[in-house]
């Protein structure tokens, strides 16, 4: 009981300290003198503007041009996006704590809609929205001082907000802390959003916004950076072994909260919800709220392709929330070995396939035609599932037995394969196979009969295999 009391005391002390630090920081940022003026460097996802090297606050001029433009949502599917800067998500804005931002919202004359901007980085009515309602063909200007460091979402807040956001009107603004962020090798901008099309997922052509699906929160698409496949294949994010990668992650919504995860990586550091005051470490999946953010960092130790997903998984695999990070370089086998072996798993603990036991001695064949006849039944019970009744096998999985060069070239090799199993790369009739055949725990008589059957079927070399031959090879192995 006393321990609990002490613990609570420490906790509240920390809370008080944090509160004091936070308030001081805000006032400091209000008072921080603004020196000089510069135009903001703005980037389209997945690029991020360069790290800020300044050691003082300045005036940063930001021009965001709102464009309503048709673009690709998925292969063969287009959508009339409403954008901050021509793409979804909107331009990435990077400023420093204490900066004075002069925000210009330029609504292109060809647009139909009025738009505005609510930056979550703003302390002020509507985050700027009240000051920036802008008719097509006009511009609005307002300014704000960046008081709180962090990674913030901005979005259009013109009624109906949900529709403006559903059409792609969101982006991220990073307010770097004065002391800067820890140095990393690569930074990327990844923002999730949900889309509501009249046509079902995959339905081709220009798809209008579906109001009913949006209100019911039933998206047809949940995607990163505005389209299905925005960061896969040639467009995948890249990194090298040994590098530390930072992802600035946002969720525009309008509705769907992300279970953000990189398959095969653990986030060494997460700045949860984009806050800059307390990092957490060793995180598998981090929640990114709609209208919220997270910063994730991880050092890459293993090469390969890492899949970035919303781990609410049907969104990743059926709605599009999937991206790739391709990592080049030599891997450390101690960190990750890759597949070292593959074997048939037998719950009984045996690597040997125990065929059906009848409890009586199998009938013995007295000549080759009896052997073929008995072998046919053994084949049907034990082999046919993979090699097929026609002996043709299954392409890329189970090699053919019909007219098989592998079979006819070496009888002993065939007997050994059935008795002891066969694993690894083989070439049959010009095709490579890399699978596993278990060892068959069948009596020598049955093995002789089934191999004889195979040799006398489907254009093979009509040889006979005797139980004695099987026994010899079994003993040798």
């Amino acid at each position: 009981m006393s321990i609990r009391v002490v613990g609570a005391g420490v906790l509240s002390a920390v809370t008080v300290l944090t509160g004091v630090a936070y308030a001081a920081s805000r006032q400091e940022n209000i008072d921080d003198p603004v020196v000089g003026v510069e135009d903001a460097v703005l980037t389209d996802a997945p690029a991020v503007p360069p790290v800020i090297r300044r050691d003082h606050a300045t005036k940063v001029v930001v021009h965001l041009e709102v464009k309503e433009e048709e673009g690709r949502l998925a292969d063969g599917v287009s959508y009339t996006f409403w954008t901050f800067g021509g793409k979804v998500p909107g331009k990435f804005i990077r400023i420093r704590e204490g900066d004075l931002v002069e925000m210009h919202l330029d609504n292109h004359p060809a647009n139909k809609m009025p738009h505005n901007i609510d930056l979550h980085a703003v302390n002020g009515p509507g985050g700027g929205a009240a000051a920036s309602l802008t008719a097509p063909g006009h511009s609005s200007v307002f300014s704000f001082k960046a008081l709180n460091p962090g990674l913030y979402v901005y979005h259009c807040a013109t009624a109906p907000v949900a529709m403006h956001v559903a059409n792609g009107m969101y982006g991220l603004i990073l307010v770097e802390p004065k002391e800067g962020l820890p140095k990393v090798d690569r930074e990327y901008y990844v923002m999730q959003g949900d889309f509501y099309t009249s046509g079902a997922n995959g339905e081709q052509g220009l798809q209008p916004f579906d109001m009913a699906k949006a209100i019911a929160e039933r998206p047809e698409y949940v995607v990163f950076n505005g389209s299905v496949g925005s960061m896969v294949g040639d467009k995948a994010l890249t990194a090298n072994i040994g590098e530390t990668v930072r992802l600035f992650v946002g969720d525009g919504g309008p509705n769907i909260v992300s279970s953000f995860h990189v398959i095969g990586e653990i986030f060494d550091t997460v700045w949860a919800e984009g806050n800059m005051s307390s990092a957490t470490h060793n995180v598998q999946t981090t929640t990114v709220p709609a209208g919220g953010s997270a910063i994730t960092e991880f050092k890459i130790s293993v090469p390969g392709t890492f899949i970035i997903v919303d781990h609410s998984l049907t969104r990743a695999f059926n709605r599009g929330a999937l991206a790739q990070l391709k990592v080049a370089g030599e891997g450390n086998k101690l960190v990750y070995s890759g597949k070292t072996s593959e074997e048939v798993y037998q719950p009984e603990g045996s690597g040997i396939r125990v065929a059906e036991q009848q409890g009586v001695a199998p009938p013995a064949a007295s000549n080759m035609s009896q052997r073929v006849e008995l072998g046919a039944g053994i084949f049907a019970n034990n082999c046919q599932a993979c090699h097929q009744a026609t002996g043709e096998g299954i392409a890329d999985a189970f090699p053919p037995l019909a007219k098989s060069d592998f079979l006819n070239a070496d009888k002993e090799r065939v007997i050994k394969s059935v008795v002891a199993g066969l694993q690894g790369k083989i070439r049959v009739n010009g095709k490579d196979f890399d699978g596993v055949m278990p060892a068959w725990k069948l009596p020598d008589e049955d093995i002789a009969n089934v191999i004889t059957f195979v040799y006398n079927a489907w254009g093979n070399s009509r040889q006979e295999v005797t139980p004695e031959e099987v026994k010899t090879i079994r003993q040798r192995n």
Partner: protein
Amino acid sequence: MGSFASFVTIALLISANAPAAGSSEMVSLPAGTYTPFQRVKPVIAADSLMFKPGEIAAFRLKIAPVTNAEFLAFVMEHPEWRRSRVKPIFADARYLARWVDDLHFEDGMANDEPVTNISWFAAQAYCRVRGLRLPTTEEWEYALADAGRGQDEVRRTSLAWFARPNASHPDTVGKGASNGYGLKDMVGLVWEWTLDFDAFAVSAESRDPNGKNSAAFCGGAAAGVSDLSDYPAFMRYSMRASLKAKYTSDNVGFRCAGDP
């Protein structure tokens, strides 16, 4: 009940006559009531928002938006409204921007496309020389509400227009079906000026539910409207709120109204 019945009869008569009328002609709309989109603060019991049923007197409204040809005729008679002569306080820099010069349209711009890039002052001047005026926002919304007829189609047409990539100029007027009053192209071609477009203006914080007339301009105060699922209506009110009387826009036109 009696007034409702006569209301319907008048509406049907108008509807039957509508196809004969040209797009430059006017139709008469009967007096009636409708549910406005925005809640309004009553003078009494001002602490709660309520829907004031809109009571609309009879009026006339032009069948379709004013076209380029119609507006050209106006500027021929009234040179002060030509592009080169209009006073900057009455129209911004994009006034008639898609015309080639004072008296010619851009190539491929048809006579019967709705005129756009018109300021409120210019629209009102056009109507006034014809003894008319712009419709009030309530009159315009009442005309669109169409006594409840075809409202699903109104929303579909609106959303389809929003989703269509922006063209270099709008389609021609009068192609679509008439509504119950015989009106065409109320939605789907251009936004339209109203007489009191700024009466529903946004307050300082557009999402403050207690703000003056702010209800429609927010996510947070969505409670201030009669139909939360009517996104096109939110759009119309937002659009009007974004305008000033001298503004012109590629997608804003107008039609005139008059007393009966």
